[in-house]
């Protein structure tokens, strides 16, 4: 098999296992020589975080088809034949065709064994830690991406946007952020918005929210102008295999949603930081069909972002992450239960080509975390910190203390960008 992602020679090394035992292996920082970008460049840099909620099964997103244990552990859920090959060990889920094309162009990499510091296997606790960037659960109420924006705003204008009717925790906090979801726009001539802005002048919650919402609606007129391929829509119904009837419609809507997001980011004065959530990855039963639908949707959103950004793609890094992975073994209901390590995807034209990010612990029984889950070798915070440092120019002290509190042990994975 030809390696499509040029891979560093990798084996489940002793170093890898030791790193796992000691905490987290950060093999990539050894390669890192952070390139200092000119300030003018920094202004164009964009970062998008895609949160896949429900515990996305890394072993399905990037099946380790070359791992000797994979087939045995996964049985009927093993994706060996249909998967899209990446290197001697890893492949991509068959629905991730756009991601695969990016990988072939050196614009997509995988981190197949990442986790947050949380080990409770609770969706809600793990999502809290994933989004707050805190060392422990429920210790802060703002999101790390918001604090990154806050930090950067001391030096330059950085706007952030979340896509969806509700604000995700990752972007909540002191720095004001915008939010948008597909809808029918605001009549610029109407009196009500003006009257309400006056009525909200002393309302710390509603005043800024309405002002930002109206500004975003104005921008949306340009950002979404001329998009073809269907109305953007937030989400096709989860849980139903998207490969069935209506699947194409759902994918078109997802692609248009990705293009809308890209449209905002291409606008003059548009956001350079964005977050979007995709629900429905909790695959306890009949996982194969469910994940095919969800991953087709994810792939279409990412394809929309890629094509929509056009020339700005080269300035962009997209991070795709989930709160935890799932059990290595299939459960009694053709699904998998809550686990630990999962896959993160790192995409974008700003990316340096390379192999897998972090070590692969293998699926050998004694390598599994608690004889159950993929053992994480990479602290998710290190991955995020590396991208924020190299790509967005956030300084190390702020990363260790403010953006990811008490995280100095989770070293930034430098050199990805």
């Amino acid at each position, binding site marked *: 098999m030809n390696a499509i992602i040029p891979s560093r020679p990798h084996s489940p090394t002793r170093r890898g296992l030791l790193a796992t035992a000691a905490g987290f292996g950060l093999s990539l920082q050894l390669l890192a020589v952070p390139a200092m970008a000119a300030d003018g460049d920094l202004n164009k840099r964009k970062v998008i975080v895609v949160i896949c909620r*429900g515990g996305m099964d890394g072993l399905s997103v990037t099946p380790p088809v070359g791992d000797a244990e994979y087939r045995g552990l996964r049985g009927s859920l093993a994706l060996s034949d249909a998967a899209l090959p990446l290197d001697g060990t890893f492949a991509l889920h068959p629905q991730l065709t756009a991601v695969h094309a990016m990988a072939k162009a050196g614009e997509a990499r995988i981190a197949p064994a990442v986790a947050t510091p949380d080990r409770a296997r609770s969706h809600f606790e793990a999502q809290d830690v994933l989004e707050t960037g805190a060392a422990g659960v429920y210790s802060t109420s703002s999101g790390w991406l918001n604090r990154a924006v806050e930090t950067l705003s001391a030096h330059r204008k950085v706007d952030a946007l979340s896509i969806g*009717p509700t604000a995700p925790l990752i972007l909540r906090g002191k720095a004001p952020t915008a939010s948008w979801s597909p809808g029918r726009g605001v009549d610029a001539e109407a009196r009500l918005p003006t009257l309400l802005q006056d009525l909200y002048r002393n309302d710390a919650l509603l005043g800024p929210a309405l002002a930002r919402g109206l500004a975003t*609606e104005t921008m949306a007129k340009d950002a979404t102008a001329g998009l073809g391929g269907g109305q953007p829509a937030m989400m096709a119904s989860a849980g139903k295999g998207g490969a*069935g009837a209506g699947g*194409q419609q759902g994918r078109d809507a997802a692609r248009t949603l990705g293009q809308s997001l890209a449209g905002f980011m291409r606008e003059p004065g548009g956001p350079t930081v964005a977050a979007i959530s995709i629900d429905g990855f909790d695959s306890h039963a*009949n996982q194969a069909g469910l994940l095919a639908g969800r991953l087709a949707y994810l792939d279409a959103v990412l394809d929309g972002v890629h094509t929509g950004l056009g020339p700005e793609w080269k300035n962009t890094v997209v991070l795709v992450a989930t709160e935890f992975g799932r059990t290595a073994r299939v459960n009694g*209901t053709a699904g998998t239960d809550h686990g630990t390590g999962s896959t993160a995807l790192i995409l974008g034209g700003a990316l340096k080509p390379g192999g897998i990010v972090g070590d692969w612990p293998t699926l050998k029984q004694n390598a599994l975390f608690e004889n159950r889950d993929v053992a994480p070798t990479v602290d998710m915070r290190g991955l995020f910190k590396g991208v924020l440092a190299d790509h967005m120019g956030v300084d190390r002290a702020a990363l260790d203390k403010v953006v990811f509190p008490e995280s100095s042990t989770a070293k930034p994975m430098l050199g990805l960008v």
Partner: protein
Amino acid sequence: MTARRDKRKETGVALVDQDMKAAIAVTRFGLGARPGEIDQARRDPQGFLKSQIRRSGADQPAGPSPTSAQRMAEFREYQRERREFRLQKVSDVGPPKPGGPATEAADPAMAAAVKSDTRDPVKVVGAMLRKDISDDFAARIQLASATDAGFRERWTLFWANHFTVSATKAITGTIVGPFEEEAIRPHVFGRFDDLLGAAETHPAMLTYLDQIQSIGPDSDAARAMRNGGGPRGVGGGGAQLQQAALKRTPGLNENLAREIMELHTVGVNSGYTQADVTEFARAMTGISIGGERDGAYGVAVFRVQAHEPGERTVMGVRYDQRGKEQANAILTDLAEKPQTAHFICGKLARHFVADDPSPALVARLEAAWTGSRGDLATVAEALVSAPESWDPRPAKFKTPYEFIVSSYRAAGGLPADFQQVGPIMTALGQKPFSAPSPKGWPEDAQSWAAPDAIVKRMQFAQAFSSGAVHDRDPKALAADALGERLSPDTAKAIARAESRPEGFALLLMSPEFQRR
């Protein structure tokens, strides 16, 4: 109105308090004021709420109410039609391509054929199911919009959200409505363990959290399946589930056990471990849904042959009961744990009073809970009696459902059908019966007050006002809707509005109407 204000000036603070309390009773504890409702509450605001606490439970939505079992039978019919129709289409179009799966997605021509066939029985039955779900939701929001016992209904909605089941799973979607009617509404003012038992063993919960197929790995059923005997009498009834069962190794699914502990009883940081979750999941094996062979299609059953034999240990307690008594004993113990009282009383305080409620209020509720061994009527009385519950500042930002219901109530109307409310609920981020996870809908302002959501609320207020109140005086509607909570700023803005709908839209979007 004017007369009352003058009178208040004469008699001083006490009456002001009473007016404010009446407004709080109806807007914070209730679902928003219908015209005249605040006046009804004025004489005795606490008594107004306490009189809504009713041992026999919540009100039931009007209209035909099919049982879960009937809905599940419909759903089974839908699956059967779909399967047969697919097979038939395959034979109409020709044999499947070699190597290609025989689904419509694999062949665009076939997909088109399926699409174009208006007599497609799958579509007919599918549309019927969707209409059922929409009708359930419409009946529920009509009840909320019209009821004169708003506190009783808000209390009920809290429990429905606590025990979330969601239409994000198709089979569950058809019975979210019946779930609320059968498992939640009768028990909301009874004992918590009765409510817990009813919720966890309802077919909606069993399907939503994947319990129906969980089989003890050392049970007789699992042994028979491993020996190629097939899943006799095991699984959730319905040929499809049994077909799926044939293709897999029988075993545990720990989803329901975990969420009972994490979300429904003791809460996530209460000291249980992964081993406790797995042990509880083993104890729960055998709890399933009846199939045709049981003569109990679509109702909860216990299959002793799927139950994992042996003793279990959960949170340090050994359970040596046999059969379903084991899971029952664990559930009963979980219901009585102090962590459960603490976790749920904190949620109640956050729901009713503030995102960040006073610890004194939580402690008061916990004391009522513990003292009454989880009697929910007693807890509801304690909530209404607690002085912390009557803080005049409106601290809670309304969820989309609360905003829309209170808008209808302010107008003195109710939604005519699903179309009037379903799409806007989805646009505001709260798709009907489709909570994003077993945790249910969030309840905090941060979740719902995103910029986009405020713009969409404004658009709803605009459209709603132009249709609802063209012949009514918005100043009077505002006084009726907010009573003493109406601020001078809002009153002034409404008085200056250039049209009645504009005035009413300003009321709906005012800071004090957006909160409770």
